[in-house]
């Protein structure tokens, strides 16, 4: 069973330009549980394309935030377009503050860098994420296959599948 244990280091910069270390607990509180990922074409689609002699686009590197509040996994719409992922549905995203929005659904493969954790996200929602410094939201549709332990006291988290 692959287990990812992460504690994020970071630096902060004072107004006079000096850098100093930030405690992992502060980083985890502010950035949330983030992991480096590669986003590519969903495996079943990739196999079919290879069988036809077609080449696959290179996976795209990005940052994923584990979001236990999200029902569904999301990928940045720019990455979906860069990978030329097929649209396989259009869904309404419900919002408490404004009108529901229609978003495309893409099948994607999300691999956690440095460990053998791969998510076949059959129905990843394409949303604009990049402006917020993240590329993927890992939602409860994928987390239902995982265990996650969030240790806010020491600023670490553990993900396994």
């Amino acid at each position: 069973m692959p287990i990812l244990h992460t504690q994020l280091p970071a630096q902060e910069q004072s107004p006079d330009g000096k850098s100093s270390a930030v405690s992992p607990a502060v980083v985890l509180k502010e950035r949330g549980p983030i992991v480096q990922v590669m986003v590519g074409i969903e495996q079943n689609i990739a196999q079919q394309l290879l069988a036809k002699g077609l080449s696959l686009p290179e996976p795209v590197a990005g940052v994923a935030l584990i979001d236990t509040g999200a029902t569904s996994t999301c990928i940045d719409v720019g990455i979906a377009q860069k990978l030329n992922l097929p649209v396989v549905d259009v869904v309404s995203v419900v919002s408490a503050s404004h009108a529901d929005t229609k978003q495309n659904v893409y099948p994607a493969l999300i691999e956690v860098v440095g460990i053998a954790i791969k998510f076949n996200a059959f129905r990843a929602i394409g949303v604009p994420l990049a402006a917020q410094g993240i590329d993927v939201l890992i939602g409860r549709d994928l987390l239902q296959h995982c265990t996650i332990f969030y240790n806010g006291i020491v600023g670490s988290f553990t993900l396994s599948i």
Partner: protein
Amino acid sequence: MLEQELAFYEQNLENWLHQYADKFVLVKGEEMVGVYDTNEQALTAGASLFGLESYLIRRIEKVTEEIRLPALTLGLLYANPSHAIASPRTIA
């Protein structure tokens, strides 16, 4: 995107519910290409037939899937940071 396929799905949903409830339908244009037990099977068929073109895959069910992304839709992914720390892209 997928306007034709979605309209075709809505037109036929009532009939399909009787025959194929909880299965996954693959629709291209105004044609039902097939019905599958899993999303994975439907994707494989779609990719085999249409490559990277778009097509509709949806579970045949009365209730529409409800997507909730509260942190994103409320703009709260990184609300109220009290420290200016490095972007996650630059974290070693």
